[in-house]
């Protein structure tokens, strides 16, 4: 015979499991709405909403940033290393906006395939290190490249 308090513990456990299951099913059903941005690959496959704005996230392609003559307009390319999307933006860019770093742009795709952004946010990565370490890491990578390259 179970004691009343053990029964209550079991009921609480079952209740939590059911709530967890319900939450899992709900979140699963909303999966496509929970994403903050789409990747360039999804854009290429046409998996993005039509007739409405959306966000693209990825990396700023190396050497792709070109500033316009007015000093405000900037062109760059967002890549997920498989596909790319060209972006045009007019406005102030955040501190962390750099080539090779993460970016999230909000806007819509025009007929010419150019993504006109109304807002550009920098997406920070989870790495923190002093500048010296970053420099050492970079030179080590370059050295290992030159070690591998000659054949």
């Amino acid at each position, binding site marked *: 015979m179970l004691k009343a308090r053990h029964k209550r513990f079991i009921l609480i456990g079952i*209740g*939590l499991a059911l709530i967890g299951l319900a939450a899992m099913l709900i979140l699963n059903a909303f999966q496509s709405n929970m*994403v903050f941005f789409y990747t360039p690959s999804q854009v290429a496959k046409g998996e993005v909403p039509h007739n409405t704005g959306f966000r693209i996230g990825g990396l700023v392609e190396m050497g792709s940033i070109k500033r316009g003559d007015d000093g405000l307009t900037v062109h760059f390319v967002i890549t997920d290393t498989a596909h790319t999307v060209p972006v045009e933006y007019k406005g102030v860019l*955040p*501190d962390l906006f750099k080539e090779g770093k993460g970016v999230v742009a909000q806007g819509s795709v025009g007929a010419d395939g150019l993504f006109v952004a109304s807002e550009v946010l920098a*997406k920070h990565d989870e790495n*923190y290190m002093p500048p*010296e370490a970053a420099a050492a890491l970079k030179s080590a990578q370059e050295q290992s490249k030159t070690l591998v390259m000659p054949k």
Partner: protein
Amino acid sequence: MHMNWFKYSSPQTFYPLAGKMIPWFFWAASLLCAVGLYVSFAIAPTDFQQGEAYRIIFVHVPAAWMSMFIYLVMAGWAAMGLALNARLSAMMAQALAPTGAMFTLLALVTGSLWGKPMWGTWWVWDARLTSELILLFLYLGFIALQSSIDDPRRADRAGALLALVGVVNVPIIYFSVKWWNTLHQGSTINMGVAPKMAATMLIGMLLMALAFWMYSVAVALMRVRCIMLERERSSDWVKALSAKGGK
């Protein structure tokens, strides 16, 4: 050695014990905070991308950790109170809620202050930020619900149910950056992998987290002592205590 822990599950015996423990936790919190702040601001190096602005993580990350951890502890006490019908457990849950809400707000505000220069925005509705905001509402809802019901035992039960239902949000916050793509970065510290940050930065962050933890314990104990006196004001032990001048 066998100790009867249940002895301390009655407010009468726990009240003086909590009173003795509070100064220790406050001293530990102050010491850890002093060392932690020194490591964070004097020893930890600048970040290669963010410069000095990254130092907000020494408050932001420990506050965010505590906001989730306190919720789990609070829900644990609430469950104990519900299942064992134990007065003190429910009081502990009630005592933790304001501190949890405070750390949640701190995490949201510091994150927002960092987000403006780094991301370029104060706020976005991504999964991590939204679920942390829901956590704040859960804390506030718990506090509001408990204080809106006059009968303390019924207030405990209602609050406990809300706290337990809300538990589902904590893993959602924690794993949100893994399950969905968010603007918020992934976690720097993961189980079983080397942390992606310099060692002194990590030490500063851990010291601050410990300081926040000790502070939370001290404040929760202080608050639970007040709740005990208030709820048991007509009992003999509180009357005897006030007759002695509260000593």
